[in-house]
């Protein structure tokens, strides 16, 4: 459940929107969208792991990250599916800027 629906539930302002978001029909739709995204892309856990590794290698060139804490997943947000990465940053090294 997203923050939006938690908030609307909490304040009771979301009304019908809140009901719509958590109805079994909407849940079915959301689940299907994500499942089919995986099926169609044929992204196995192995491929996901490889992709994660490659992304880490690229990001590491620029910033220092906590490799063990990285989360990468397909998620359903506001009617679209996104590849969501959560990458905790340790430090950003100071860089020499010749043109700055």
């Amino acid at each position, binding site marked *: 459940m997203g923050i939006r629906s938690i908030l609307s539930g909490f304040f009771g302002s979301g009304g019908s929107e809140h*009901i*719509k978001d958590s*109805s*079994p*029909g*909407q849940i*079915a*739709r959301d*689940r*299907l*969208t994500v*499942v*089919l995204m995986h*099926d*169609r892309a044929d992204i196995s856990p192995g491929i996901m792991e490889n992709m994660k590794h490659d992304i880490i290698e690229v990001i590491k060139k620029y910033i220092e990250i906590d490799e063990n804490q990285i989360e990468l997943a397909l998620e359903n947000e506001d009617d679209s599916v996104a590849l969501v990465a959560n990458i905790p940053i340790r430090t950003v090294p100071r860089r020499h800027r010749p043109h700055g």
Partner: protein
Amino acid sequence: MAPRVIVVTSGKGGVGKTTTTANIATALAVMGNKVVAIDGDVGLRNLDVVMGLENRIVYTLIDALEGNCRLNQTLIRDKRTENLYMIPTAQSKTKDAVSSDQMVKVCDDLKHEFDYILIDSPAGIEAGFKNASAGAEEALVVTTPDVSAVRDADRIIGLLESMGKSPIRLIVNRIRPHMVKRGDMLGVSDVLDILAIDLIGMVPDDESVFTSSSKGEPLTLSSDTQAAAAFRNIASRLTGNDVPFINLDEPQGGGFFGFLKKTFGHGR
């Protein structure tokens, strides 16, 4: 008109492929087309009982393929409907009894005699499905508004596309409009958004479907229920007629909503 070979398939089992095949075949024949429905599910045949022709089987498709009889000896004429025939398959054999090449040949031979050749495919994505589809140019994909059935339909659509079938059209079966309205299940529009293929029909969940298969009498033969009308509309659309869809997602006014009110006692 050139003869058309159409496979009825779904991926997931139990969504209504055989019932759909029997009803569309019957409706097409009632409209005046010469139709044959082939049971493509070797080893788990069902089309014969759904059509009520199980007592008339002498030879099966497998007998013809093994050279025990000629292909036209396997044809069972439905005495209730002019121009309607069925080819049964064997119950005691396995999927290996038929090859894709043989199915292509069978369909080509039948094209000389029939306007429509409908093939009831087995569930699954393996050899049985591939053989059953081999001779078909077009496909009807049957699904129900369930997460699992829609997921499998998506897989089957991908396979049918890779096999070059066209057009591939969708039938959403067993819709419960009052549940869709409450937001308790997927609606047809959800399924269409997700699968992104053309819709050719939506069939409400209807007790008449059970009574018709109990009796072995396709609904489209004589019934006037909503499900019967839905199957007749599909047959009509198949022949190229532009038949408007009944909006089952939001039943309103008389017609279907009135029918629901009577059946389920739901007020607005």
